[in-house]
């Protein structure tokens, strides 16, 4: 995979060539750029502009968080997985089961518990799975997810089996803000806040030396061994963090909807988040945002226009992306941006 790791766009540095330009680009790569405020402004704008669609918005924000977690593993470290819903589901069921059986209903600590459970599953499976690569790894991630799904199906006494668990009694956020069944106002702001925190964490991580070394593993695993990097440890750590974040996304989903069922663990969800990330552009941090919005908005309108064949439109779009624009929508945007006059300079 040869996606540019960090699509830092033009620092407004003078187009001076040579020595200092490259060093300055690296030194300033992590700096915030003006356009990074856009997603958050849009998210707040959405809250006021579409008060009746906040349920949809909440789902979108959760999908973004889930896709970011996948981006860390797939886009940055190059861990090929099609089973990331395992961790989403683990988080969702953690919150669901604890709440349904009256053990734990406080939402924020619930998120932390969900992150811990999903992270542990990520750690345990990662220690085994990450000895493999490529297609073998892909299959094993699907198998792990399948095992969890079937376990959730069989352990009906605890998980509700096929029917899942509904009417989860989740306490108000901070003991004050009740989850709103009808308009999802609380859910939306709550999920947005959690997304901001998780995003800041991931953004810090990918611009750190650790994140830099993950891109090294993605670009050339063998060379990373040869420069003395503990490659497998790094991958397992990355996978564990990614799993914990996916667990938080799943927990948010369970809390926001007050139910959990087998769909959180299925291949459909795992494939959808992958499509979202590929559409938006992987290894780009903001690909998750663009992908989630494009996917969900398209799915929303296409399914109204063509209720029986809406997935065809998405499928075609995905084919076009895969064939002509590996960088996704964001990649196309970046190419257009750079194409304007400027040679692919130190950006």
């Amino acid at each position, binding site marked *: 995979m040869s996606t540019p790791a960090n699509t830092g766009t033009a620092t407004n540095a003078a187009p001076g060539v*040579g020595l200092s330009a490259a060093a300055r680009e*690296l030194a300033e790569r992590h700096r915030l750029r003006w356009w990074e405020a856009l997603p958050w402004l849009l998210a707040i704008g959405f809250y006021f502009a579409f008060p009746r669609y906040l349920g949809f918005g909440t789902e979108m924000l959760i999908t973004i968080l889930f896709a970011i977690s996948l981006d860390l593993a797939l886009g940055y470290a190059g861990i090929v997985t099609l089973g990331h819903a395992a961790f989403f589901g683990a988080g969702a069921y953690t919150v669901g089961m604890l709440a349904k059986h009256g053990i734990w209903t406080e939402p924020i600590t619930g998120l932390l518990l969900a992150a811990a459970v999903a992270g542990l599953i990520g750690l345990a499976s990662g220690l085994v799975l990450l000895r493999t690569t490529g297609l073998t790894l892909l299959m094993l991630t699907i198998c792990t997810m399948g095992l969890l799904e079937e376990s959730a199906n069989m352990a009906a006494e605890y998980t509700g089996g096929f029917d899942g668990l509904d009417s989860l009694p989740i306490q108000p956020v901070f003991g004050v803000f009740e989850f709103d069944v009808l308009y999802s106002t609380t859910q939306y702001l709550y999920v947005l806040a959690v997304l901001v925190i998780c995003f800041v964490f991931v953004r810090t991580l990918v611009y*750190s030396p650790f994140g*830099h070394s993950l*891109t090294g593993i993605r670009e*050339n695993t063998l060379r990373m061994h040869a420069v003395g990097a503990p490659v497998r440890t790094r991958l397992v750590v990355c996978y564990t963090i990614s799993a914990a974040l996916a667990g938080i996304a799943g927990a948010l989903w369970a809390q926001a909807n007050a139910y959990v069922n087998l769909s959180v663990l299925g291949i459909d969800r795992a494939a959808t988040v992958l499509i979202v990330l590929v559409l938006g552009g992987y290894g780009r941090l903001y690909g998750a945002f663009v992908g989630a919005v494009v996917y969900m908005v398209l799915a929303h309108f296409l399914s109204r226009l063509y209720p029986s064949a809406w997935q065809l439109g998405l499928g075609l779009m995905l084919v076009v992306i895969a064939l002509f624009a590996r960088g996704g929508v964001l990649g196309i945007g970046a190419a257009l941006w750079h194409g304007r006059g400027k040679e692919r300079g130190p950006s």
Partner: protein
Amino acid sequence: MTALLETRALSKSFGALRATRDVSFRLEPGARHALIGPNGAGKTTFINLLTGVLTPSAGTVLFKGADITRVAQAERVKLGIARTFQINRLFRGLSVLDNVYMSIAERVGAAPNMLTPAGRRRDVIDEAMDLLTRLKLADIAHKTIPELPYGRQRLVELAITLGLKPEVLLLDEPAAGVPSAESHIILDAIDALPKSIGVLIIDHDMDLVFRFAQTITVLVRGAVFAEGTPKEIGANPDVRSVYLGQATHG
């Protein structure tokens, strides 16, 4: 005197193929040593045994007298044994500076840090730029690997390894595929290495080997065939017949 790197009766078999046979070899501190031999002589296998990519079937590898036969590759790098590859192994999607940052960050222990930006490690960036300046790559530090001509890519290959500040440097055909007009940059870079490093170079290019090496080991079918100064090796009729004759024509 303890050798920097030493092997004793080192052997490696792949099934029935004995790729390395009973090789006892010493690389002295500050050595400029060359390993030559016809195609399929087992030169790269030998390097892989030295670096820990392969585990020997028999024999031992010693670093400063300590047995490292079972020490993993990454650990050997930490000890100070580093190599370049015959075929470039670069971080292709990243810039030249990022490529070099990668190995320096590992060496100085910056890489496990998750919480401060990579760009804040000015020490790593400055060292990387110094290294690139020495190799005359500073002006293209911002370019990604596919944007560079092959000779420059070969220099990046060397730069990544030099970023590890090795005590033992194993160079697997460092100038292979580099136009002769550019190969002097690579040779100059090797000449400019600190004298204390032990360097082992594998190459087919006899001009390069004879210019560079103080000691030459000739490997034939996995075993040491001859060893000596360039003068001795050049005058050895057996070596000429198995190797030099063909190679100088090729």
